[in-house]
């Protein structure tokens, strides 16, 4: 952010732009970059998902558009979806119906601001970074509830109710799982958390102690539930709720749900990378020229793991979903928190 602002100041010549304007310009540029990166990631991941699913299901997936393995398929899909008729059901609550996909999208977009991809490459280096991310991504719940309510369709409403219940519940183990990391790092600033993990693979928080490893697993599972993917895809469950909260959506509005889903998928993987897997840190010597690439590579691996899980497991039932969250994950996360604390007292020397 500071670099970008400085860049603008240099281009315009010192003193010609007011600091206020510079700040706005910088923020806008960063937001634009983030939005583009996010959209690009989402598009690439839709393709990856289809190819991986194809591989797992002994079929090819997209093969035609763009010559090589249907690489241009997402672009073709986008073009198609742009041309689709924009349908708003007659009895829908128009205002909220139109607004909902954007709320959802903005929720996931906002969270990106605090992700440190490389040293210094972070849109907003907030001291409350981690807290901010969780707060911002909670907006997704409101988007889902809005869409389900505004659609005026019982299936949508059920999807929205399930979605809200699920996301609100799973945010608890998700947040509890990162608390031990905060204990270790002594900061909520994302960059500080990553910096605290530099210096070898055993410095990664996921590998610092056994409790933290379990915390990482809890985070990973809860994050799958956060982004509504199988085995936790209850808000959508095409076989039960037709398509859940976005049953009535089509065309571009549907695309926003879709993009937000993949952006969220990538987001939770990025958070896991930053918080548990050492961010841009890596054990390979001579790879220090591109920390952002290392970061992305780890996140992409996590995304692939989520895709793999999605195409392997059946779906939980709604009461079982809650059971897993409240009776298994949360107690376990609390045990891990306590365990990590004890471990710190016992083995870690405080400076």
């Amino acid at each position, binding site marked *: 952010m500071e670099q970008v602002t400085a860049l603008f100041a240099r281009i315009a010549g010192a003193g010609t732009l007011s600091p206020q304007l510079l700040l706005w310009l910088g923020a806008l540029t960063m937001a634009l970059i983030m939005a583009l990166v996010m959209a690009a990631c989402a598009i690439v991941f839709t393709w990856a998902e289809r190819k991986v*699913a194809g591989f*797992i*299901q*002994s*079929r090819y997936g997209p093969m035609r558009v763009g010559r090589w393995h249907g690489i241009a398929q997402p672009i073709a899909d986008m073009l198609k979806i742009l041309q689709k008729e924009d349908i708003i059901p007659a009895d829908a609550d128009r205002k909220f119906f139109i607004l909902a996909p954007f709320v959802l999208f903005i929720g996931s977009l906002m969270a990106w601001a605090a992700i440190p991809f490389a040293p210094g490459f972070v849109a907003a280096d907030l001291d409350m970074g981690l807290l901010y991310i969780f707060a911002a991504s909670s907006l997704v719940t409101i988007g889902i509830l809005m869409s389900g309510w505004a659609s005026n369709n*019982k*299936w949508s409403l*059920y999807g929205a109710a399930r979605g809200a219940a699920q996301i609100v519940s799973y945010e608890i183990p998700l947040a509890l799982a990162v608390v031990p990391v905060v204990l270790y790092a002594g900061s909520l600033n994302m960059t500080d958390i990553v910096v605290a993990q530099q210096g070898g693979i055993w410095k990664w928080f996921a590998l610092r102690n056994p409790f933290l490893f379990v915390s990482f697993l809890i985070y990973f599972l809860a994050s799958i539930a956060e982004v509504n993917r*199988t*085995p936790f*895809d209850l808000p959508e*469950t*095409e*076989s*039960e*709720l*037709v398509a859940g909260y976005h049953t009535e959506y089509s065309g571009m509005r549907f695309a926003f749900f879709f993009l937000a889903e993949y952006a969220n998928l990538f987001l939770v993987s990025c958070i896991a990378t930053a918080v548990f897997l050492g961010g841009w840190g890596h054990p390979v010597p001579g790879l220090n020229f591109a920390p952002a690439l290392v970061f992305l590579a780890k996140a992409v691996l996590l995304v692939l793991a989520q895709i793999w899980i999605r*195409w*392997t*497991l*059946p*779906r*939980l*039932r*709604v*009461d*079982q979903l809650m059971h897993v969250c409240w009776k298994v994950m949360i107690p376990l996360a609390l045990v891990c928190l306590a365990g990590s604390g004890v471990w710190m007292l016992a083995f870690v020397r405080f400076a």
Partner: protein
Amino acid sequence: MSRKLLERLQQEFGTAILRTADQHGDAVIWVAPKDATVVLRHLRDREQCELLLDVAGVDYPERAKRFEVNYLLRSLARAHRVRVKIDVAEGEAVESATPLWRCADWHEREVFDLLGVPFRGHPDLRRILCHHEFEGHALRKDYPIEQGQPCVSTEKLFGDHEIEQASRRSEGVAAAGDESGLPSDLLTVNIGPSHPATHGALRVEVLLDGETVVRARSEIGYLHRCFEKEAEDHTWHEVMPYTDRLNYCSALLNNAIWAHSVEKLLGVQITPRCRAIRVIVSELARLTDHLVCLAANLVDIGALTNYWYLYNVREGIYQIFDKLCGSRLTTNYARIGGMSHDLYPGFAEETLFHLGRLDEAIRDVTGLVARNRIFLDRTVGVGAISREEALSWGYTGPCLRATGLAYDVRRFAPYFGYEEYDFDIPVGEHGDTYDRIMVRFEEMKQSARIIRQALRKLPEGPVNIDDPRVILPPKESVYGSIEGMMNQFKLIYEGIQVPAGEAYGFGEGGNGELGFFCVSNGTGRPWRVKVRPPCFPIFSSYSRLIEGGMIPDAIAILGSLNIIAGELDR
């Protein structure tokens, strides 16, 4: 066999039994409407006829008592096959058998709907296959087959009063357990007719308390095209392609069992090669049926990948069908007295290859789900039904075997020479969704076993019987001789002349006992054909299975019952 039973019944009831007969091993008794319940109850309680297979009405407009209602009963323990006939005049009511067998509910509604015979004491005597606005009774002989009726409005399956009552009851439950005292109105939701999990067009109206199904009621008939009326309007042979559309997941089974039923009425014996071919294609069709059912069921539970593992095998089998019959789904392969043509060269090798792939697929899929904790949580104990209850609901096939009862028509009353093959009847234990799924997996292995044996000892010789009254003459003879041409002409235009009589031909279909109750008046067209679709009675128990469960359970159960709208609605 049936003679002893008939003697016993005559001793017991004396003149109440108006007449008896033995038709193709079925004990047939005529009783007056007033004695029907007593005789039926006796048959159920004393003669162990625990299964009510079907209720078939026949219309004879020229008789004084115009309608004949047939109750088709079956005793699994004593191997009785009984048909109780009740003659009624127009407007005269028959005592309902719903207190005796729960499946009588829908069967009697069907007779009421299509023929207009009322049933006294029936709890819910409404139309079932035809639309509720439909006027007249489609299967009466005086209803013209061309006369369509546009019907548009949707029927409310629950009255306001019922909803209120159910709400109050569930509120009572909530108030007892939950101290918040919040009002809990039930939400009425239609699952279907267009819903991803109905795999066809079924409608289930459910009253939901949160995710819990408090009450459910199903409506069928969206795919009703009155197959039975069409059958009366066509020659015996022309019905064959219509049977493809009954259970379209295993059309070959319908073909074979239809031919078998008419052959029973004709009294002809098919050739050994034809029997073996029918066994092979029947078992292949059973494989496709089970594959579709399992794949769809697993998709409904969210295990999407298994769909491809299973469908890839089905695709292979469909390619065999394509080569064999010229089409994948609507096979139209069997003929009365034989088959349309012999197997093609290389059939055995291709089939064995695909059976190998089937073994692989079963291994892959059971490896993924059989001990998967999520899958177990979703299926074990879900939609469980006891053996007695399943019988009362008229279950047959894998759904009945999942309750632990090893009833399989192929063993119970072997046809096509099934007694010569070595195979097991897999059974479950708890009658829940898990057992139904696993029974199907095991049955696929057994089917593959039967096919391998049949291919090994496939007898040489002609496929069709040598009988010019039944089988079309060869083309050279049609074009080369006057007799051949006349023979062809008579068989095509007038149809096979089936001697007057009745027969219930049945076999093991993909999801249970598939039967055709055929009545001939000695002409080239059937007087009456009544299909016994296995999923019809099974689906009638659906609301009972899902009440008290949750929506996801309802979906998982529906998939495991294997409801095929084509044969459900006919």
